């Protein structure tokens, strides 16, 4: 289930509840108002004390530049949606005798309110909008202090999901010319956790993405993650048996949601059962009895999709059965007549994944045309196939220890591979002449990190790692903010003070991490 399903479920609550809520008069807790006023006075006193004491402890209080440190408020900063820090350029080889100067600019011009239009002909409408994002220019000058030319193999890392990559993949230039880069893809940066509120400490049913800088520091503090990202993506050329179910025919009925269930038996010791297009399923490993159900067979607006039952390591034992039901519950007593065509064939899982990825990518309900084209431009189709295979092997039913989240075999889950956050590495080589220098610039859009509720809900976070995961020797690092007319700097560890015109600072190379919290003015 996803948030859209929940939204739809709420949409369908009974009429009387909607009516009642619309007319409901809330009880105002008047005594609370008095208490709140008193409490607010106490809170102000405590709050002021807290701020003062906090400022005394931070090394950059009142200072124009530098400072920060791992102690301080950034350690308390985590986000519901954390974009991750801007990471530094790194060298895989050839960096001995080369020093780097780095200058990072956060350009907040996307916050500028703009007018956009939509519609056609005479039916043109306009609206005002802005983006909570920064254009980051991460510029380096590499100096070769030896007396021989140095060829470096470089990696520019960016924390992104594939869906973000369409908008946010960095463009790298070397001495002003766009570099040809190869894309290497790191694994999902987050993890999995059990069900909230349940006694499920070892569970893996929920995603557990990285929500703070500390998570990335732990992940990238050695080169294990980066090295595994350099490995080629796998292919899943294993044979599978596929049952494709389509051509549904529903006898005239008053059923609210006619459905079709395919029931079958397999040997769970040898056979892994996956499916695509099933709306519900049951797996009983004890008896080997499985079923897959597809609903919505009378959808007036579009044909129901084919359902695929995919078997790896074995086949159905005996015959399968098909039965129609009035709804997607598939309960006894709700049977109706539904027929379908079942086609059995053998293929490889890789071939099937390619077909399903292609079908998914061409579904405009999932990938609107513009978004799909941009994604296809940014990430080759072969990479998407490999990524789906990798996901199944690492986390899904092709893994030796599938995550709970995917253990039921819905193949649709492989598409999470495209929306999970990763570190993408752009690889390229440069030659720095003896005694000379080479300029490298990465430009990218970075959306702000967000909280949906709480004190940070009306502002966005941007942060920067000074040396995490980098093999370069940095002689100097600077940071700046530009086009700040439409933002206010809520808090920051860089030392920026926009009101005083302090928009560029020199960073302390001993400090690993800098952050800022900005809000759209007004």
């Amino acid at each position, binding site marked *: 289930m996803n948030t859209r399903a929940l939204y739809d479920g709420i949409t369908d609550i009974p009429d009387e509840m909607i*009516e009642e809520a619309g007319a409901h008069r809330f009880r105002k807790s008047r005594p609370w108002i008095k208490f709140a006023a008193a409490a607010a006075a106490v809170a102000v006193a405590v709050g002021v004390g807290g701020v003062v004491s906090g400022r005394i402890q931070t090394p950059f209080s009142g200072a124009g530049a530098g400072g920060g440190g791992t102690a301080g408020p950034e350690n308390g900063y985590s986000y519901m949606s954390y974009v991750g820090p801007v990471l530094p350029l790194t060298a895989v080889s050839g960096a001995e005798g080369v020093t780097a100067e780095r200058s990072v600019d956060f350009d907040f011009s996307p916050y500028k309110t703009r007018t956009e239009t939509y519609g056609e002909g005479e039916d043109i409408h306009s609206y005002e909008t802005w983006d909570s994002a920064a254009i980051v220019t991460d510029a380096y000058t590499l100096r070769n202090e030896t007396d021989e030319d140095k060829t470096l193999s470089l990696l520019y890392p960016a924390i992104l999901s594939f869906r973000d990559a369409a908008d946010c993949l960095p463009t790298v230039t070397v001495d002003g010319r766009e570099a040809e880069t190869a894309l290497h893809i790191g694994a999902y940066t987050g993890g999995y956790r059990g069900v909230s509120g349940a006694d499920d400490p070892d569970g893996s049913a929920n995603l557990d993405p990285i929500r703070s800088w500390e998570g990335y520091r732990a992940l990238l503090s050695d080169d294990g993650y980066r090295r595994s990202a350099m490995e080629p993506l796998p292919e899943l050329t294993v044979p599978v048996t596929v049952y494709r179910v389509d051509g549904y025919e529903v006898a005239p009925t008053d059923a609210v949601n006619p459905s079709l269930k395919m029931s079958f038996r397999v040997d769970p010791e040898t056979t892994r059962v996956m499916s695509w297009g099933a709306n519900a399923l049951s797996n009983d490993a004890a008896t080997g009895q499985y079923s897959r159900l597809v609903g919505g067979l009378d959808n007036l607006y579009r044909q129901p999709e084919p359902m695929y039952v995919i078997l790896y390591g074995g086949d159905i034992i005996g015959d399968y059965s098909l039965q129609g039901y009035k709804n997607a519950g598939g309960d006894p007593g709700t049977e109706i007549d539904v027929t379908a065509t079942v086609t059995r064939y053998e293929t490889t899982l890789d071939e099937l994944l390619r077909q399903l990825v292609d079908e998914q990518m061409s579904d405009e309900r999932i990938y609107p045309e513009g978004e799909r084209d941009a994604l296809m431009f940014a990430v080759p189709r072969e990479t998407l196939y490999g990524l789906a295979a990798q996901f199944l092997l690492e986390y899904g039913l092709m893994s030796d220890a599938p995550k709970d989240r995917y253990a039921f075999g819905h193949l649709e889950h492989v598409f999470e591979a495209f929306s999970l956050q990763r570190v993408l590495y752009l690889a390229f080589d440069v030659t720095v002449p003896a005694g000379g220098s080479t300029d490298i610039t990465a430009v990218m859009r970075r959306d702000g990190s967000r909280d949906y509720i709480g004190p940070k809900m009306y502002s966005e976070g941007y942060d920067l790692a000074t040396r995490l995961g980098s093999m370069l020797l940095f002689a100097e690092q600077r940071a700046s903010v530009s086009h700040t007319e439409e933002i206010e700097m809520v808090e920051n560890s860089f030392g920026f003070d926009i009101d005083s015109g302090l928009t560029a600072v020199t960073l302390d190379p001993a400090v690993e991490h800098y952050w800022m919290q900005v809000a759209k003015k007004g």
Partner: protein
Amino acid sequence: MDDAAIIDLYFARSENAISETDRQYGAYLRRVALNLLSLREDAEECVNDTYHAAWNAMPPERPLSLRAFLGRITRNLAVARWRNAHAQKRFAGVETLLSELGDCLPAREDTEGAFERRALAECLTAWLRELSADDRALFIRRYWYGDAVKTLAMKCGVGENGMAQRLRRLREKLKAALEEGGFSV
């Protein structure tokens, strides 16, 4: 004009059906649409589309509550509009609601029917019935009508943060109820 009379106009294919609907429910539908879509122009279009959809739906539909029926159409159109133009990042209302509702998602689906919209609505309904009248109205006003947290805070005479906390607790309760209802492990 009452609901039955307006619905009769639809069945008679009288164009007055639309104007009477707008007179009776226009402000309410605009509020729901604006809560979800944030931009007045989009909300206006969404309401117009609602009237169009209502015209196509009646007959044969004869809703018991025209208010709920029309509101549902508006919500469905709003979320479809949001999905189609998500890349433009224009629809803060739906985006915020979906993000908040993400808190309530149970871990995984494992029972037949768990995907069924109807079953989910039934589970939600049962859970809502167990709430106090205030909490029930609060949840529906936030997640059905899309009323702003600030608006609800004012109506209840509490601060915005307090209201956000109260809603968060409701979402946590809902999550537990969904899990108990077989929508997760």
